[in-house]
């Protein structure tokens, strides 16, 4: 691969989905900041350069996070000048998910994030680990006796839902209604509608609105009658200036916690289990050494994390990695590429289950927007793998669904922002 062939590739082409890393790896190694010719987007694929962007929300705004390669087609006009901060702030309503914390910049973001502080932490999850184990076993009890399962629908989707709902304090009788609002009908043990699996929850404008009235009511309830759950923590949290948020302000963040992290965690679990099923030696090693599972999960996040990239918009004219970036430039920040930057990770395309510096990956982002659900995604994935390895003697790829070992067939999400397989059929030999 060379730069001429790179210039010919439109990074948004869905046909790249099965192997987006071929051209991303080239970019990270050779041109970590690159203005691609198809949309005029500046792609940031270098690790150090990505960190600089993520550490500079005053220069690189999240307002266009999921607005695609051409946010200006959504906005009424394009201003001149080397600082468009005021313009962007005055026109956020034109951009998708504009009422969600993920698109906010400081100081608005700082205030919203305060409502989440301390609620999903390794310490809290450790204290609640027994409940995660219980829900893990409950969902495994459903799939293991059959000896085969489609991991997404039969396990990962209902499992991640049960856990976040339980942590938040959403009662089980409400799960079906909330899922139906989202357009995903699956409950533990049932399959989603056939066309539902290619729709990340982040398409369109403020797609989480469907949950706002429900969570607003719950926040008001928790203020009247506090309980020990995460919703209570959010209901009682104050903005940094000491003011009490309106229930809707809390509801937006609760909706994000409820819905946004699930798809990504589901993909992470699938990617990790596919590798375990495809590599018997690695499977045996992890079965014998459960203490190595954490690092294995981190290396999975590094090599094939669920987020390929996200957008930022340059509010001010700046320079990055020797490339001039005029104000108004849409920037595609590729977490997936930065995690495979050879300046940061030795032999980056190689999967090394015990890589020393693996936690320097930015699969969960970096800086103020670092994924608040990261501790939960890590726990869910680790405990799933530990329990599944312990309760089986063998995990294999189902050849009827995915073909023989030398000719596997997997379907990938057809998007340049996420990476993951659509379905994963596995067979198990259950331990006596």
């Amino acid at each position: 691969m060379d730069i001429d062939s790179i210039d010919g590739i439109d990074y948004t082409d869905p046909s790249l989905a099965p192997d987006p890393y071929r051209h991303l790896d080239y970019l990270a190694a050779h041109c970590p900041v690159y203005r691609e010719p198809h949309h005029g987007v500046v792609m940031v694929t270098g690790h150090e350069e990505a960190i600089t962007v993520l550490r500079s929300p005053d220069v690189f705004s999240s307002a266009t996070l999921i607005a695609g390669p051409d946010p200006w087609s959504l906005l009424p006009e394009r201003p001149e000048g080397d600082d468009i901060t005021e313009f962007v702030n005055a026109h956020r309503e034109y951009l998708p998910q504009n009422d969600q914390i993920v698109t906010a910049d400081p100081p608005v973001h700082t205030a919203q994030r305060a409502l989440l502080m301390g609620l999903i932490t390794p310490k809290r999850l450790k204290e609640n680990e027994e409940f995660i184990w219980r829900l893990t076993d409950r969902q495994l009890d459903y799939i293991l006796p059959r000896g085969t399962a489609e991991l997404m629908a039969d396990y990962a989707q209902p499992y991640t839902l049960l856990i976040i709902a339980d942590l938040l304090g959403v009662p089980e009788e409400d799960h079906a209604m909330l899922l139906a609002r989202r357009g995903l009908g699956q409950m533990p043990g049932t399959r989603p509608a056939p066309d539902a699996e290619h729709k990340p929850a982040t398409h369109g404008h403020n797609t989480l609105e469907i949950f706002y009235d429900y969570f607003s009511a719950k926040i008001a309830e928790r203020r009247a009658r506090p309980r020990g759950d995460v919703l209570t923590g959010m209901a009682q949290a104050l903005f940094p200036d000491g003011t009490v948020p309106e229930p809707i302000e809390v509801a937006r963040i609760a909706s994000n916690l409820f819905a946004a992290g699930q798809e990504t965690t589901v993909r992470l679990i699938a990617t990790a289990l596919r590798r375990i099923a495809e590599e018997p030696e690695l499977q045996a090693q992890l079965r014998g050494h459960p203490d190595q599972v954490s690092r294995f999960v981190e290396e999975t996040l590094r090599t094939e994390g669920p987020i390929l990239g996200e957008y930022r918009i340059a509010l001010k004219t700046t320079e990055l990695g020797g490339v001039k970036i005029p104000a108004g430039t849409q920037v595609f920040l590729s977490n997936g590429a930065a995690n495979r930057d050879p300046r940061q990770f030795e032999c980056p395309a190689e999967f090394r289950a015990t890589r020393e510096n693996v936690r320097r990956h930015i699969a969960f982002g970096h800086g103020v927007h670092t994924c608040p659900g990261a501790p939960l995604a890590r726990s869910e994935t680790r405990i799933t793998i530990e329990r599944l390895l312990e309760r089986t003697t063998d995990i294999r790829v189902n050849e009827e669904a995915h073909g023989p070992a030398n000719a596997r067939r997997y379907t990938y999400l057809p998007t340049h922002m996420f990476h993951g397989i659509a379905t994963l059929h596995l067979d198990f030999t259950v331990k006596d």
Partner: protein
Amino acid sequence: MATIAHREIRVDRTLCMGSGQCCWYAPNTFDQDDETVAIVIDPQGDPADQINAAVNGCPTRALSLVETEEQ
């Protein structure tokens, strides 16, 4: 007797999300324990500007610097 300003680094374990980002900016000052919660291994392990970057860069504001005076 002169008073010496002493900077103490505090970690709020209930806020820390285990992002490990402090270890990037000040790798000789911070580490993570078995639960991935940040710990201070050497309060003077790195130059002050790196420690400041780590403290200010914490995504959950779990780190703080407290100035105390020692006799």
